[in-house]
């Protein structure tokens, strides 16, 4: 068994990254950053981690360094949030299309303007179409576990992985976390041996021009790779359960067995929402909760199975898709349902923007809205929750 430690989650995440024996870390060490890369720089400086720590001039350069390094066949890491992620944007699509197994931890935060440093999913939702595998954690333990998982998956699927954890609400909290023993980590994440790499002795071209005759095929290849990564992802969680005893699934459920109103939420607010579920269950209301552990590739079948026979589904988005018909998760779910025979009413809220607290009472109110929308005639619903007017 691993060691139970009391650590700030960012520090524990950095320790897990170090346990994965990364070779190159590139980061832009200024706001918005977390203690993750700060602690990694300490580990490298103290000689506790044999890696190259490259302090770059921007987030754009941070991911560019990871891309270059990864192409030479070494294990890479970077971490960012909010504006930093946006500044990386063009490189995101390059990393995935070049099939580079970079692991990035995103400490989810809102994007400016207004200037904000607080938590929501406004940053990560902008990269949902970037071809990266994307997983979400709800607490420090899950964040650490998803880091281990990310390296195993990335190098098998040859795709970059973004591990998400909520900025501040999780990153800055001291809580109990169990790190795997190094021996287990080494077994779970064997040395990285890429099929192709940049090597002067055996030259290849990486990132060549994609003329109209091959661009479509190259992008299709990425799309297929992402779709196929689903099995690798699930298998890696099964393997992880064997060594840690902790079980993870693409769609996690809580008291959904006989639920008539379900809620969908991602990230750390899930834990608070569970308390709302328990309270309503005590009153005899059949409510349940589900959340996407895996967001990309979108676990379509798991989702349809998980919703069971709910009559309405309260989708709590943590980000906006301006000018659209819902939040990013709400839109995705409506689209997924259209292909099936299931027709629960969708009650789509956007809540908890920029760290605004969402309490048990708030979740209960949202569930109650779900109850009023159980009828077939219920109109279209999309609302930003709790706006002060």
């Amino acid at each position, binding site marked *: 068994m691993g060691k*139970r*430690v*009391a650590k*700030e989650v960012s520090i524990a995440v950095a320790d897990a990254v170090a346990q994965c024996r990364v070779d190159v870390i590139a980061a832009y060490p200024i706001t918005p950053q977390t203690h993750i890369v700060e602690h990694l720089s300490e580990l490298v400086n103290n000689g506790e981690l044999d890696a190259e720590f490259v302090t770059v001039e921007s987030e754009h350069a941070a991911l560019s360094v990871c891309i270059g390094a990864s192409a030479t066949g070494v294990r890479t890491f970077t971490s960012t949030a909010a504006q930093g992620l946006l500044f990386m944007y063009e490189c995101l699509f390059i990393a995935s299309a070049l099939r580079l197994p970079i692991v990035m931890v995103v400490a989810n935060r809102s994007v400016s303007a207004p200037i904000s*440093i*607080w*938590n929501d999913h406004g940053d990560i939702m902008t990269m949902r179409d970037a071809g990266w595998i994307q997983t979400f954690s709800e607490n420090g333990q899950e964040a650490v576990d998803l880091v281990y998982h990310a390296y195993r998956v990335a190098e098998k699927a040859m795709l970059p992985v973004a591990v998400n954890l*909520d900025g*501040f*609400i*999780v990153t*800055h*909290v*001291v*809580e*109990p976390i169990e790190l795997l023993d190094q021996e287990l980590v080494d077994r779970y994440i064997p040395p990285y041996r890429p099929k192709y790499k940049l090597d002067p002795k055996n030259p290849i071209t990486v990132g060549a021009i994609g003329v109209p005759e091959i661009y479509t095929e190259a992008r299709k290849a990425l799309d297929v790779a992402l779709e196929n990564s689903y099995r690798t992802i699930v298998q890696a969680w099964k393997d992880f359960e064997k060594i840690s005893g902790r079980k993870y699934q693409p769609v996690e459920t809580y008291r959904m067995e006989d639920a008539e109103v379900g809620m969908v939420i991602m990230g*750390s*607010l899930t*834990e*608070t929402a*569970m*308390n709302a579920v328990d309270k309503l269950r005590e009153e005899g209301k059949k409510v349940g909760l589900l959340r996407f552990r895996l967001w990309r590739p979108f676990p379509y079948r798991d989702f349809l199975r998980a919703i069971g026979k709910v009559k309405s589904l309260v989708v709590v988005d943590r980000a906006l898709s301006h000018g659209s018909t819902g939040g990013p998760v709400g839109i995705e779910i409506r689209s997924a349902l259209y292909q099936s025979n299931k027709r629960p009413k969708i009650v789509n809220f956007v809540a908890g923007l920029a*760290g605004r*607290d*969402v*309490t*048990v009472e708030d979740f209960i109110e949202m569930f109650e809205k779900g109850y009023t929308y159980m009828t077939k005639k219920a109109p279209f619903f999309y609302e930003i929750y709790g706006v002060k007017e």
Partner: protein
Amino acid sequence: MIEIRLHGRGGQGAVTSAELIAVAAIHQGLYAQAFPSFGPERRGAPVQAFARISNTYIRTRERIYHPDVILVLDPSLPKLVKVTDGLKEGGVAILNSHHSEEEVRKMLGGYQGKLALVDATKIALEELGVPITNTTMLGALVKAIDLIEINYLEEAVRARFGKLADKNIKALRRAMEETQIYG
């Protein structure tokens, strides 16, 4: 579950205090969370930090609105901030103060509940040579709430402060002895 809100001034180490509480509780085998108030902080300005301790997994990420315990590191804060705001009935207010019980109750706007007082600034000046009370006040916390064992707290202080640990532990122990509990 016990929820603790710490009041200090930026730079006084309220966040460190909260972290030490959580680290000690976790090493003791309990569950705990510690977190700062998420926002810009300025040296000298009133700040808050938070801790939760429980026998079971803490499944919430809500802010703390109704603490069971408030721990006030700086003696001048009650004049500026309503430190007892939201304090649960049956909760305890732990303050660094050289004033009498009556004076403090009056300063807290006629607060009637359980009170724990210690002149932590005096102890810190004598033991550490600086008026930084974040570790000293942990002694008062140990005395006021029967939950964290002193040896785990000492261990946490030792891991955090290295060479300065002995002095801090001495201040903490002295505060534990000198803390007076009322009501």
